């Protein structure tokens, strides 16, 4: 009797904190990613299997995080943030230089990229801070929260890693916005921001300026950075409405389309599946985002609302910035296409975020019932 009921009960416990709708949408995106990766890597099974391995690891982390109760999540905010800041300072002082940027920290046993940790730690910290001061929110609190955001962003932008700095800025801004930053302040910030553009420009690294300038005239640097944009645009445009068919992208398979398994994988997808495929992909992303918004709207506490909203909007930002840079409306900043691009780190960070979403959703349900 007991035996018969053990496995169903275990299974029930196993999926208790998993949101099936969200998981199905994520799974679909990841499968799409594997299929495109197979094409982009010219049928390199090794690479596809490695990515599948990355996905399994990331899914395991998703499950773990989804099972963490909320108060536990909150308690990690401060220590994780502080750890991240220490590591970032460590990178600035002792970091290893690779590809002209100081992003990696060698801990002896392994090298880590602390900016990746901050993608979660910064919004977590800000949401925790707002929750703590929920009852007595004043402008000062927004100011402190903005500082919590700015310190890591400046350190990361200095590395220089513009893509990550932009993503973290966005995720932090979403927290501020959802926490109710007044429209007037945002208006003032916008004006101030536009006014300080020339100053920011002068602080950018030569190659970052180059990438932005090049956006307006890719032909100018047709052999270097402009090559990415030109080839990406040709690939997307030549895909047409229906695409050239799976494994048939000529740009992809004949030409030298750089980073085509990582940052430029969308060009491969778009060439082979066309406008129709793009619509389906946008639809899948929109579905995930919509589900995220529903979870956000239903969230029970201030902290979880801010966190869920920020995670969802950051996910959208990932997708938008990546596709935008491939089709030449944004500068090439090195942001992967979420859940599709090859690479384990961003996969883990993303699914960790979605694990939090599921935890927020399912633990609230438990509280209610």
């Amino acid at each position, binding site marked *: 009797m007991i035996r018969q009921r053990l496995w169903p009960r275990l299974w029930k416990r196993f999926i208790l904190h998993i949101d099936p709708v969200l998981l199905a949408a994520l799974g679909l995106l990841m499968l799409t990613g594997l299929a495109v990766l197979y094409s982009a890597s010219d049928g390199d099974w090794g690479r596809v299997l490695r990515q599948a391995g990355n996905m399994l690891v990331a899914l395991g982390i998703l499950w773990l995080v989804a099972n963490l109760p909320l108060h536990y999540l909150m308690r990690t905010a401060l220590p994780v943030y502080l750890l991240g800041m220490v590591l970032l300072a460590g990178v600035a002082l002792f970091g290893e230089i690779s590809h002209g940027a100081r992003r990696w920290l060698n801990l002896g046993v392994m090298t880590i990229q602390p900016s990746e940790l901050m993608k979660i730690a910064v919004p977590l910290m800000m949401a925790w801070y707002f929750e703590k001061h929920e009852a007595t929110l004043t402008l000062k609190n927004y100011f402190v929260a903005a500082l919590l955001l700015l310190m890591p962003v400046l350190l990361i932008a200095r590395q220089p890693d513009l893509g990550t700095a932009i993503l973290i800025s966005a995720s932090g801004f979403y927290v501020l916005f959802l926490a109710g930053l007044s429209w007037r302040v945002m208006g003032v910030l916008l004006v101030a921001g536009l006014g300080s553009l020339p100053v920011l420009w002068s602080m950018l690294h030569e190659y970052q300026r180059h990438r932005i300038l090049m956006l307006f005239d890719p032909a100018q640097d047709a052999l270097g950075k402009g090559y990415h944009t030109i080839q990406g645009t040709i690939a997307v445009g030549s*895909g047409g409405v229906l695409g050239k068919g799976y494994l048939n992208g000529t740009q992809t398979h004949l030409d030298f389309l750089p980073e085509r398994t990582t940052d430029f994988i969308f060009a491969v997808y778009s060439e082979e599946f066309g406008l129709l495929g793009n619509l389906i992909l946008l639809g899948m992303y929109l579905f995930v985002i919509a589900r995220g918004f529903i979870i956000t709207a239903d969230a029970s506490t201030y902290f979880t609302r801010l966190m869920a909203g920020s995670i969802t*909007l950051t996910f959208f930002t990932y997708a*938008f910035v990546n596709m935008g840079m491939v089709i030449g409306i944004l500068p090439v900043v090195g942001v992967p296409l979420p859940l599709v691009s090859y690479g384990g780190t961003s996969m883990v960070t993303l699914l960790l975020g979605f694990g939090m979403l599921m935890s927020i959703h399912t633990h609230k349900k438990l509280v209610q019932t």
Partner: protein
Amino acid sequence: MKRRVELKNIQREIYHFRLRLVLSLGFVLFMLLVLLARFVYLQVVKHSHYQTLAENNRISVVPIVPNRGLILDRNGVVLAHNYSGYTLEITPSKTGGLEATIEQLAQIVEIQPKDRKRFKKLLAERHDFESLPIRTRLSDEEVARFAAQRYRFPGVEIKARLFREYPYRELTSHLIGYIGRINESDIQQLEEDDRAANYRGSDYIGKTGIEQSYENELHGKTGIEQVEVDAGGRGVRVLSRTPPVSGNDLVLTLDAKLQQVAEQAFGNYRGALVAIDPNNGEVLAFVSRPGYDPNLFVDGIDEQSWSELNNSPDVPLNNRALRGQYPPGSTIKPFMALAGLHYNKRAPGYTISDPGYYTLPGSSHQYRDWKKGGHGSVDLFKSVVISCDTYYYGLATELGIDNMHAYLSRFGFGKKTGIDLEGEAAGLLPSQEWKQKRYQQKWYAGDTVSAGIGQGYDLVTPMQLAYATAILANDGAGYRPHLVRQVQHAGSNGPAAPEIRPDFELKFNPEHLALVKRAMTAVTQPGGTAAGAGAGAPYGIAGKTGTAQVVGMKQGEQYIESQVQERLRDHAWFIAFAPADKPKIALVVLAENGGHGGSTAAPIARKVLDYYLLGKVPQPLPAAAGEEEEHD
């Protein structure tokens, strides 16, 4: 902003939050519409435009590789140049079958197994849509034969390319270095330095020597051509063109003739020679023997030649002048003499009585002089002229190793000279601190004694010793040794060579300096250790001989040159500058296993000095390879 004092209204809060959430959703939808609009623009409105671009690959961006800069000696003799030749290239992805294609090609032009091996290696490193050479340097006849049958070989092309050539071969191998095919680690490095774009289309990069250290000057700027091509990938029309900018030419400080004279003077000896103009740090000759033919490396060296070079007991690939580290032996004595005078441990007139050995107080161990029975009464002048070991054993003990370290490091011992070549060795100038760090051992008094005559832990490179000699010759002015005199910008004469200033100036008591120089001049005069080499010279040569032990001798054992295997014989040193009163050249000669400095190294130096100061050519110099032919 006014403080909120009223109680929180949860319903209102949630209402506001959801309002913002809806606004966010609106923002997301709007941005997705922006993306969608761009998709529609690219994939529907402009589709046919991009279709043609992609399908026929109509417009291809072709990099135009710039001509690499030439390398000339100080008198305009060409040491590295480019010549045009034909290569046979295959784009593997465009052939029907790669193996079959190569088989068929082999029936028309000669393709050796080593060509195939090299091609396989290239194929593994590069993409199969790139055009890769299977044969280089085709003869006119081979070109004609292939052209006639070209229709049979899709994806195979004859290309005219520029090849690098080093007409003087071994003569300049360790100095000029060579270029070679760009490999994985080069690509990584280029990407790290953000230089990869400028290397698109380039196959070669400087690997060693001047070719490596001046890569950025020599390479030039890659041009771009937008070419309209037909369905077969052949160019029809050039749409736009940004011409490449050729690399800059380098004028070296080297005198190629002097270099040849020096090479010849070595005869069969291995070793190194570095000659510097002490007045400005210009390196006049830079020899490391044996050398190798750098032309072998340009297109990837074949296995047999590589293993011959790599396994030769003469280690021809080792740059002895720059990287070879040897005990300085007695060549350290003039510097030690200056140190003794500087620290007031020796007065010029102070004499010791040399019994032929030295013992530390309270020890019976004998540190032997090279001359059995000793030199009798020896003052500082004589100690240099006849190279008395006993004198310096005692002096070193009184100075102490840390004073020696402090004083000798002023001449650049134990540090890289900073010459414009990569991979320089730093030598070794020991100190108490160093030994503690390196061996976790304390410094012993006996260590100091050996260090006094440049043995024990002391190591120098010929380059370092030449630099130190130049500093001494020029009364303390340290001009960093350099090999490039001028960078000539393509198409113009470029700026004049910048005026060279010394990096530092050492201060000496002029009497001390004059005394040591006088003693060094006496070394090459009757009674000195290099009297034979100095005989009959119409100018004064200040010099010092030295020997560097290859194997240590046991206590009581005697070193008899004729009984020692050739490769275990001592290395011979000679340092010199001339004319002694107003030096124009400072040099160092190292003859490996040459025995005594006075009998082997000094005569080599004499020949070089005679040529440089008197224009005397000992025997006719060989012509450069292909010198009679015309090159562009």
